[in-house]
């Protein structure tokens, strides 16, 4: 693993991050939006892990952070999906474009 350094990981995570952002902004389906958020969170996780591994290996701050982020991602996803389902029940649509009752 000599020639794979921090930089490589950061490329991966950054790309993942922006792919997530792109997805969040373009996917009209609420669930896919949620999936994009998960991608972003994972990008952050990779960052934490990679930094921890390559730069600050004496402590496990990054690792723990990742663990907690995963937990939070789960909670967030759960609540979001509950809300989406509720919305779906009310509206029969999970298209984000349709959720614009409130504007102006």
């Amino acid at each position: 693993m000599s020639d794979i350094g921090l930089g490589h990981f950061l490329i991966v995570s950054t790309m993942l991050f922006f792919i997530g952002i792109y997805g969040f902004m373009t996917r009209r389906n609420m669930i896919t939006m949620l999936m994009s958020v998960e991608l972003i969170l994972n990008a952050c996780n990779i960052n934490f892990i990679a930094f921890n591994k390559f730069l600050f290996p004496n402590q496990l701050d990054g690792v723990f952070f990742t663990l907690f982020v995963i937990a939070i991602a789960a909670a967030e996803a759960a609540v979001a999906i509950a809300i989406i389902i509720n919305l779906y029940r009310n509206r029969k649509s999970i298209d984000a474009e349709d959720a614009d009752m409130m504007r102006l």
Partner: protein
Amino acid sequence: MSDSLALLLVPALPLAAFLLIFLVGRVYFPKFSGILGTVIMLATTVISMATAYKYFFVTGKVDGVYQHLIAFKFTWLPFSENVSIDMGAIMDPISMVMICVVTFISLMVHIYSLGYMKGEDRFAIYYSYLGLFTFSMLGLVLSTNIFQIYIFWELVGVSSFLLIGYYFDKPSAVAASKKAFIVTRFADAGFLIGILVLSYYTGTLDFETMIARLTVPGSELTAITTAGFLGVSALTWGLMLVFMGGAGKSAMFPLHIWLPDAMEGPTPVSALIHAATMVVAGVYLVARLFPIFAISCPVGLDVVAYIGVFSSMFAAIIACTQTDIKRVLAYSTMSQIGYMMFALGVAGYGGENGLGFTASFFHLFTHAMFKALLFLGAGAVIHYVHSNDMRDMGGLRKHMPVTHIAFLIACLAIAGVPGFAGFFSKEEILTAAHNSNPIIYWCAIATAALTAFYMFRLYFNIFWNKEYHAHHSDSHHGDDHHHGEAPWSMKAPLIILALLSIATGYIPFGNFVSSDGQALHSEFHLTSAILPVSLAIGAIIVAMLFYRKKNAVPDKIAGTIKGVYTGALHKFYIDELYLFVTKKLIFGIGGTIAAWFDKNVVDGVVNFSATVGENFSDTLKKMQNGKVQSYAMYFFTGVLGFVLLFVFLWDKF
């Protein structure tokens, strides 16, 4: 009675009459108000006469010179340490003459009005206004302070406004009163600026001090003569502006336009205000500042002279063509005041040079008598005929003999026929003019002839000419006195004034009033009187030929000088010119522009900013389209913007 108390009472009594009648009398004893006012006025007259007598014959003269005494004086409005408006009463020959004239004429008018105004709805109000006017006029003539004179000047203006507008439901009366007030107000603005100029350089508003500082060489005089604007010295500016105020009140050309219209007021009012008292305020003002004019600013005096003589002639010409008898009298008033003005203008300070000054006041005095008489007589006529127009009259001599005689006396007096008061005063003026300025002299002579002509035109038209038939259906008029001549309350003043119109001419006026306080013994030169007298008599004869019997000669003559005639008939279109300049140019365009600017620019900016704000708000509102992804987009763009700005561009700032 001490002088100070007396001179306090002189203006205070009419004021009290005003307040009493206006606040109480109007409601509780409207009928009695007239008597009340007259009694108070009588008291005032007596007091002022007594005071004047005391001044002229007992206390006033020290070493052969009439002194300027200050009866009382207190600070009314302090501006700074030295400059303050004082209220006080001055005693000197001219003020004493003036209080006598004012109170006396006022008394006459009060008495006359008892008959003339009887039965009017607002009888009490009328008397209260008379009281107010008399108060203001007395305050004016007694002023010790140039600002005090301004204050009463304004008050006189407003009481004149009230009296002219007495018949307030008549639109023409309202218009006339407005006109009078506004025109004189315009002149007063000049007066005010003049006061500011003078007071700035002299550091005082007090007449005595101001005159002293501006006649004796000193730092103030140097400062005011060297400082200038547009090449004219500050002194001249100041005096001319003050004179502008005087010209406004005294109806000098070109500020005369209000006077003829002011005849919309009740006729006694015209007699009081527009003949005998208020209109001579300008003369009085110039006389008051005469030492400054004469000693330090002869140029100013020249201006006064030329304006006076021009106005005099100008008015006389117009008077020849008017048919409204009150207007004829109004123009004659203007003409006579022009006489007084130029008499002042040709005078110098002290000794023989001061003849014009004396003459001017002499004429003022006599003119007050016969002009009041003329107006009151005209009032009696109008009262009888119910018309102002001389074409509705004729042959009234049989119907109203007393009035006829009184009127004739007045006409003779004003025409300068020897033996009558006007002759003496006019002769003195002409002498003074002759001594100093031939142009003015010849103009004055011509005016004298014109005066005689138009007065007798008036006289003949009223009392001779065609026969008068009381053809009005008067049955519905409740007036029981209509078919007879005026009641005694009206006749008595006529008789008194007629006598005085003869008698006053014999007063040795130079003994009392002169430019420097020393007695001036003017000699009467028969030779110089020949020309004017013969001209006057000639003019009277012409008038008699024209108007004694109804004939076509006047019209023919008018036809031959058509241009001049129509011009004069339309008062040389001065009114129209004014109307155009003020209504159309200044107020029309100026007001329209101001209103437009206010509505569209000033208000427009405010409303525009509101509109811009709302539009901006609408635009922003569209940002909010309710779609969460576009919110994310804005969010992310915001982040990127910040990144771009702070990571990449910041260092380069």
